[in-house]
């Protein structure tokens, strides 16, 4: 995949906001002194009158976003996942979630692939935190095309949305000419009958690569991209459970409370089959280059192949 185009989904976020600003006059952007990193700086440059820096004060930023939404604006509150979902959790819950306000949260630098900044900035818990809030939609796009489509879908949806973007350049998997994003609907990237690999975000590309390797070895793995973790596409997951009998989930997030837990919850209720979770185990990350960390924490096509084979006793 060396010649595949790569782009960080945070870039896609900044660009999508800018591209959609004219069509959506109520769109405004908030940031907490990280505009250069979250890429809302692109929007700031194009629409300085609709960009508001809140300084290093994420709690207030979320509250301001709530107030803007209550008065008819569509605010995109942007910062790192650690601070959006972590530090400001209670404000997101009580000032945005409880009144069900039309706030969009753009959380960048999620997961272990933050890299060198280390454990304090590697948020592996945000999806778990956000999906516990009633009425909160949680989206984890896998690439540039999906990220841009997600921003548009969030704008067209009335209610709070948490969007998770990455720092690391990710392979562009989807073709913008044919790609369709439907909120709450998973995408079957590859059909298969032996097992299903359910992936989200940065791990979708790894899951697809793993399926290629497995195919060469005679294992027919289905690959599902779940970009909307909440509401989960239960129908698609149940169908996969029924038809393939085993599921492996892959996410750049703690195995506690994220995609794997959501899928396991669904499968347990509708069609109990084994669900094996690949993700960050119950531990903190540490500093290092993102690509090395992903390998170390088992977030790679190679590790997925190993886990799938073990699950199938092969």
């Amino acid at each position, binding site marked *: 995949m060396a010649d595949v185009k790569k782009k960080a989904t945070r870039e896609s976020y900044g660009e999508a906001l800018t591209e959609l600003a004219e069509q959506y006059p109520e769109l405004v952007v908030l940031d907490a002194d990280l505009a250069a990193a979250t890429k809302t700086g692109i929007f700031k440059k194009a629409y300085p009158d609709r960009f508001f820096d809140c*300084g290093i004060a994420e709690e*207030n930023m979320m509250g301001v976003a709530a*107030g803007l939404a209550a*008065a008819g604006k569509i605010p995109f509150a942007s910062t790192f996942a650690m601070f959006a979902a972590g530090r400001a959790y209670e*404000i997101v819950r009580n000032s945005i979630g409880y009144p069900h306000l039309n706030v969009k949260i753009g959380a960048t630098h999620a997961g272990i692939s933050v890299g060198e900044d280390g454990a304090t900035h590697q948020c592996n818990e945000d999806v778990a935190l956000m999906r516990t809030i009633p009425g909160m939609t949680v989206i984890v796009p896998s690439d540039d095309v999906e990220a841009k489509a997600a921003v548009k879908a969030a704008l067209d949806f009335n209610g709070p949305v948490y969007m998770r973007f990455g720092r690391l350049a990710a392979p562009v998997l989807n073709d913008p000419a044919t790609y369709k994003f439907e909120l709450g609907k998973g995408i079957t990237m590859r059909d298969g009958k032996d097992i299903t690999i359910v992936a989200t975000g940065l791990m979708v590309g790894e899951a697809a690569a793993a399926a290629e390797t497995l195919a060469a070895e005679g294992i027919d793995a289905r690959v599902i991209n779940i970009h909307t973790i909440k509401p989960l596409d239960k129908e698609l997951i149940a169908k996969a459970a029924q038809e393939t009998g085993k599921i492996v989930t892959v996410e750049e997030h703690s195995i506690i409370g994220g995609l794997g837990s959501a899928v396991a919850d669904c499968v347990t209720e509708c069609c109990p089959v084994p669900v094996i979770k690949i993700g960050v185990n119950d531990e903190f990350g540490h500093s290092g280059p993102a690509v090395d960390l992903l390998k170390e924490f088992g977030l790679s096509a190679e590790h997925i192949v190993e886990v799938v084979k073990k699950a199938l006793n092969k």
Partner: protein
Amino acid sequence: MDETIKKQLQKTAVNIRMGVLTGTFHAKSGHPGGSLSIADLLTYLYFAKLNVDPKNPDMPDRDRLVLSKGHTAPALYAALAERGFFDKKELESLRHIGAMLQGHPCIHTPGVDMSSGSLGQGISAACGMALAGKLDAAPYRVYTILGDGEIEEGQVWEAAMFAAHYGLDNLTAIVDNNGLQIDGKITDVCSPEPIDEKFRAFGWHVIVVDDAHDFDKIEAAFNEAETIVDKPVAIIQKSVKGKGVSFMENQVSWHGAAPNAEQYEQGMNELRAALAELEG
């Protein structure tokens, strides 16, 4: 202030205080102390200041009020009922299962502009509303009421910084300075004093009202607030927790306790007497 109008406001304030007792008595819980300390403030706002329409609670250009000290919802509900946003009967089912009136304000209740109750958050939402008003060049003003204990929350000062930075002169924050919080005197618990100097240092125009139960003084403060340009305004009002019910006044134990039947009767009798005196 015109004496007839003042007398009418004083009577309304007594009715709102009765609503506070009625709500908390029937709920068997709630926060009467800090509700009674803002009864006059809410009376002034809802009956002499705010551009609101009970028949059209979501009117786009209405003035907004965010009760950042959301635990004093009984006073807000009593004021909204008195103003006609919903039936006064609702006060009797405050905090009950299936009731409209929640323990803390919920945005879905007619007349409530923002859910609140987790302290320190309402002022941020008020900043967002004020900013939206600026962006739309809308005529409305945004008011938010904070407790003096509440301002111990760090988020309040993040919001204070934000409001001054963006010159939100359509925002007025009222700090209900009754001097008491759950664990005791604010100066003993973890003092937020001097409150006026803090807001001034954060770039706000500060007005101190030395008697939050005097309508002339309340009116003067709000009139002054409207003349301030490019700065948010903080009104620090010195109030009496439990004001209007003798045995609740300045008693921290009435922060979060409901009156029993006997206390309710005594309190209501005192308020009935106050009303009778005003009606002379």
